[in-house]
Protein backbone atom coordinates (compact mmCIF):
# COMPACT_ATOMS: atom_id res chain seq x y z
CA UNK A 1 0.00 0.00 0.00
CA UNK A 2 2.86 2.36 0.81
CA UNK A 3 4.27 1.65 -2.63
CA UNK A 4 1.08 2.69 -4.42
CA UNK A 5 1.50 6.34 -3.47
CA UNK A 6 5.15 6.26 -4.64
CA UNK A 7 4.06 4.81 -7.98
CA UNK A 8 1.38 7.51 -8.33
CA UNK A 9 3.91 10.28 -7.58
CA UNK A 10 6.45 8.85 -10.02
CA UNK A 11 3.81 8.59 -12.76
CA UNK A 12 2.72 12.18 -12.16
CA UNK A 13 6.33 13.41 -12.32
CA UNK A 14 6.95 11.49 -15.56
CA UNK A 15 3.74 12.79 -17.15
CA UNK A 16 4.26 16.44 -16.16
CA UNK A 17 7.92 16.41 -17.22
CA UNK A 18 6.91 14.97 -20.61
CA UNK A 19 4.23 17.66 -20.99
CA UNK A 20 6.78 20.36 -20.06
CA UNK A 21 9.11 19.14 -22.78
CA UNK A 22 6.34 18.82 -25.36
CA UNK A 23 4.93 22.35 -24.78
CA UNK A 24 6.32 24.84 -27.30
CA UNK A 25 5.15 28.26 -26.04
CA UNK A 26 7.47 29.42 -23.17
CA UNK A 27 4.60 31.07 -21.23
CA UNK A 28 2.57 27.86 -21.16
CA UNK A 29 5.76 25.94 -20.40
CA UNK A 30 6.22 28.08 -17.26
CA UNK A 31 2.71 27.08 -16.13
CA UNK A 32 3.53 23.38 -16.63
CA UNK A 33 6.85 23.86 -14.80
CA UNK A 34 5.02 25.30 -11.77
CA UNK A 35 2.86 22.16 -11.61
CA UNK A 36 5.98 20.00 -12.09
CA UNK A 37 7.60 21.71 -9.09
CA UNK A 38 4.63 20.87 -6.85
CA UNK A 39 4.52 17.26 -8.10
CA UNK A 40 8.26 16.85 -7.47
CA UNK A 41 7.80 18.13 -3.91
CA UNK A 42 5.08 15.50 -3.40
CA UNK A 43 7.46 12.82 -4.73
CA UNK A 44 10.20 13.88 -2.30
CA UNK A 45 7.71 13.81 0.59
CA UNK A 46 6.53 10.34 -0.37
CA UNK A 47 10.17 9.18 -0.45
CA UNK A 48 10.55 10.50 3.16
CA UNK A 49 12.71 13.50 2.30
CA UNK A 50 10.55 16.43 3.45
CA UNK A 51 13.54 18.81 3.78
CA UNK A 52 14.32 18.40 0.09
CA UNK A 53 10.60 18.80 -0.59
CA UNK A 54 10.51 22.11 1.30
CA UNK A 55 13.30 23.64 -0.75
CA UNK A 56 11.79 22.23 -3.93
CA UNK A 57 8.48 23.91 -3.07
CA UNK A 58 10.17 27.24 -2.41
CA UNK A 59 12.10 27.14 -5.68
CA UNK A 60 9.71 25.29 -7.96
CA UNK A 61 6.31 26.80 -7.22
CA UNK A 62 7.14 30.51 -7.40
CA UNK A 63 10.78 31.27 -8.24
CA UNK A 64 11.33 29.25 -11.44
CA UNK A 65 8.12 30.50 -13.13
CA UNK A 66 8.95 34.08 -12.11
CA UNK A 67 12.45 33.89 -13.65
CA UNK A 68 11.10 32.30 -16.85
CA UNK A 69 8.26 34.79 -17.28
CA UNK A 70 10.51 37.81 -16.63
CA UNK A 71 13.04 36.52 -19.18
CA UNK A 72 10.33 35.94 -21.80
CA UNK A 73 8.85 39.40 -21.20
CA UNK A 74 12.22 41.10 -21.54
CA UNK A 75 13.09 39.24 -24.75
CA UNK A 76 9.71 40.09 -26.29
CA UNK A 77 10.04 43.77 -25.40
CA UNK A 78 13.53 43.93 -26.86
CA UNK A 79 12.32 42.22 -30.04
CA UNK A 80 9.51 44.77 -30.38
CA UNK A 81 11.99 47.66 -30.01
CA UNK A 82 14.17 46.17 -32.78
CA UNK A 83 11.09 45.89 -35.02
CA UNK A 84 10.39 49.59 -34.37
CA UNK A 85 13.93 50.63 -35.35
CA UNK A 86 13.69 49.04 -38.77
Amino acid at each position, binding site marked *: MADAVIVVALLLVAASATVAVATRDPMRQALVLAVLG*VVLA*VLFTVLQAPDVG*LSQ*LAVGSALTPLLLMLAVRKIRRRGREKEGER
Partner: protein
Amino acid sequence: MNGWLLAATVSLAGGLGAALWGVATGPLRRRVVAQNLSTALACPGLLLLSQAYGRPSYVDLGLVLALLGPVGTLVFARLLADELAEDPPRAWGLTWTVAGLGAAAVTALCVATGPSRAMVKLLVVGALLISGNVIASRALSGGFRGVRGG
Protein backbone atom coordinates in the same frame (compact mmCIF):
# COMPACT_ATOMS: atom_id res chain seq x y z
CA MET B 1 -4.29 -0.82 5.48
CA ASN B 2 -3.90 2.82 6.36
CA GLY B 3 -7.02 4.81 5.44
CA TRP B 4 -5.19 8.15 5.54
CA LEU B 5 -2.62 6.89 3.03
CA LEU B 6 -5.41 5.64 0.78
CA ALA B 7 -7.17 9.02 0.97
CA ALA B 8 -3.91 10.85 0.22
CA THR B 9 -3.16 8.57 -2.75
CA VAL B 10 -6.64 9.00 -4.22
CA SER B 11 -6.70 12.79 -3.75
CA LEU B 12 -3.18 13.24 -5.15
CA ALA B 13 -3.78 10.95 -8.13
CA GLY B 14 -7.20 12.41 -8.97
CA GLY B 15 -6.50 16.03 -8.13
CA LEU B 16 -3.02 16.44 -9.55
CA GLY B 17 -3.87 14.23 -12.54
CA ALA B 18 -6.83 16.45 -13.40
CA ALA B 19 -4.75 19.60 -12.83
CA LEU B 20 -2.02 18.24 -15.12
CA TRP B 21 -4.58 17.47 -17.80
CA GLY B 22 -5.99 21.00 -17.48
CA VAL B 23 -2.59 22.67 -17.63
CA ALA B 24 -1.45 20.62 -20.64
CA THR B 25 -4.39 21.31 -22.96
CA GLY B 26 -6.84 24.01 -23.90
CA PRO B 27 -6.69 27.82 -24.00
CA LEU B 28 -4.51 29.96 -21.72
CA ARG B 29 -7.34 30.86 -19.31
CA ARG B 30 -7.95 27.18 -18.58
CA ARG B 31 -4.25 26.55 -18.00
CA VAL B 32 -3.82 29.30 -15.40
CA VAL B 33 -6.90 28.09 -13.51
CA ALA B 34 -5.53 24.52 -13.54
CA GLN B 35 -2.15 25.76 -12.23
CA ASN B 36 -3.91 27.62 -9.41
CA LEU B 37 -5.99 24.58 -8.47
CA SER B 38 -2.98 22.22 -8.60
CA THR B 39 -1.49 23.89 -5.50
CA ALA B 40 -4.91 23.94 -3.80
CA LEU B 41 -5.28 20.20 -4.43
CA ALA B 42 -1.70 19.21 -3.50
CA CYS B 43 -1.86 20.95 -0.10
CA PRO B 44 -4.63 18.70 1.41
CA GLY B 45 -2.77 15.72 -0.07
CA LEU B 46 0.40 16.69 1.79
CA LEU B 47 -1.55 17.19 5.04
CA LEU B 48 -3.14 13.74 4.64
CA LEU B 49 0.32 12.24 3.98
CA SER B 50 1.64 13.74 7.22
CA GLN B 51 -1.21 12.08 9.12
CA ALA B 52 -0.67 8.81 7.24
CA TYR B 53 3.03 8.66 8.12
CA GLY B 54 2.33 9.78 11.70
CA ARG B 55 4.82 12.65 11.42
CA PRO B 56 3.29 15.97 12.54
CA SER B 57 6.36 17.87 11.30
CA TYR B 58 5.37 17.04 7.69
CA VAL B 59 2.53 19.58 8.14
CA ASP B 60 5.17 22.26 7.46
CA LEU B 61 5.17 21.21 3.80
CA GLY B 62 1.46 21.93 3.56
CA LEU B 63 2.00 25.26 5.33
CA VAL B 64 4.73 26.33 2.89
CA LEU B 65 2.64 25.23 -0.11
CA ALA B 66 -0.43 27.10 1.18
CA LEU B 67 1.72 30.24 1.45
CA LEU B 68 3.75 29.99 -1.77
CA GLY B 69 1.20 28.45 -4.14
CA PRO B 70 -0.99 31.56 -4.34
CA VAL B 71 2.19 33.68 -4.66
CA GLY B 72 3.14 31.70 -7.77
CA THR B 73 -0.35 32.18 -9.21
CA LEU B 74 -0.16 35.93 -8.49
CA VAL B 75 3.09 36.01 -10.49
CA PHE B 76 1.22 34.58 -13.48
CA ALA B 77 -1.77 36.87 -12.92
CA ARG B 78 0.53 39.92 -12.96
CA LEU B 79 2.75 38.94 -15.89
CA LEU B 80 -0.02 37.46 -18.07
CA ALA B 81 -2.43 40.33 -17.32
CA ASP B 82 -2.53 41.56 -20.93
CA GLU B 83 -3.25 38.10 -22.38
CA LEU B 84 -5.85 37.35 -19.70
CA ALA B 85 -7.62 40.71 -20.01
CA GLU B 86 -8.98 39.75 -23.46
CA ASP B 87 -10.27 36.39 -22.27
CA PRO B 88 -10.61 36.42 -18.46
CA PRO B 89 -10.94 33.04 -16.73
CA ARG B 90 -14.14 32.47 -14.78
CA ALA B 91 -14.02 29.33 -12.65
CA TRP B 92 -15.70 30.26 -9.39
CA GLY B 93 -17.64 26.99 -9.15
CA LEU B 94 -14.46 24.95 -9.49
CA THR B 95 -12.55 27.21 -7.09
CA TRP B 96 -15.16 26.85 -4.34
CA THR B 97 -15.44 23.10 -4.93
CA VAL B 98 -11.68 22.70 -4.44
CA ALA B 99 -11.80 25.00 -1.40
CA GLY B 100 -14.57 22.78 0.01
CA LEU B 101 -12.44 19.67 -0.56
CA GLY B 102 -9.55 21.32 1.29
CA ALA B 103 -11.86 22.32 4.14
CA ALA B 104 -13.21 18.76 4.36
CA ALA B 105 -9.69 17.29 4.53
CA VAL B 106 -8.62 19.81 7.19
CA THR B 107 -11.78 19.11 9.23
CA ALA B 108 -11.20 15.35 9.12
CA LEU B 109 -7.57 15.83 10.21
CA CYS B 110 -8.66 18.16 13.04
CA VAL B 111 -11.13 15.53 14.30
CA ALA B 112 -8.35 12.91 14.18
CA THR B 113 -5.88 15.19 15.99
CA GLY B 114 -8.19 16.31 18.78
CA PRO B 115 -8.06 19.71 20.49
CA SER B 116 -4.40 20.74 20.84
CA ARG B 117 -1.79 23.09 19.41
CA ALA B 118 -1.43 20.81 16.38
CA MET B 119 -5.12 21.30 15.59
CA VAL B 120 -4.75 25.10 15.68
CA LYS B 121 -1.80 24.76 13.29
CA LEU B 122 -3.95 22.69 10.92
CA LEU B 123 -6.68 25.32 11.10
CA VAL B 124 -4.13 28.06 10.30
CA VAL B 125 -2.97 26.06 7.26
CA GLY B 126 -6.58 25.56 6.13
CA ALA B 127 -7.43 29.24 6.48
CA LEU B 128 -4.27 30.23 4.57
CA LEU B 129 -5.06 27.66 1.86
CA ILE B 130 -8.64 28.75 1.23
CA SER B 131 -8.08 32.51 1.50
CA GLY B 132 -4.93 32.42 -0.66
CA ASN B 133 -6.74 30.36 -3.26
CA VAL B 134 -9.75 32.68 -3.42
CA ILE B 135 -7.50 35.75 -3.65
CA ALA B 136 -5.46 34.14 -6.45
CA SER B 137 -8.66 33.21 -8.32
CA ARG B 138 -9.94 36.76 -8.02
CA ALA B 139 -6.63 38.14 -9.30
CA LEU B 140 -6.76 35.78 -12.30
CA SER B 141 -10.28 36.86 -13.24
CA GLY B 142 -9.17 40.50 -13.18
CA GLY B 143 -10.61 41.46 -9.79
CA PHE B 144 -7.58 43.62 -8.93
CA ARG B 145 -7.26 45.40 -12.26
CA GLY B 146 -6.88 48.73 -10.43
CA VAL B 147 -3.77 47.56 -8.57
CA ARG B 148 -1.00 47.95 -11.12
CA GLY B 149 2.27 49.17 -9.68
CA GLY B 150 5.71 48.90 -11.26
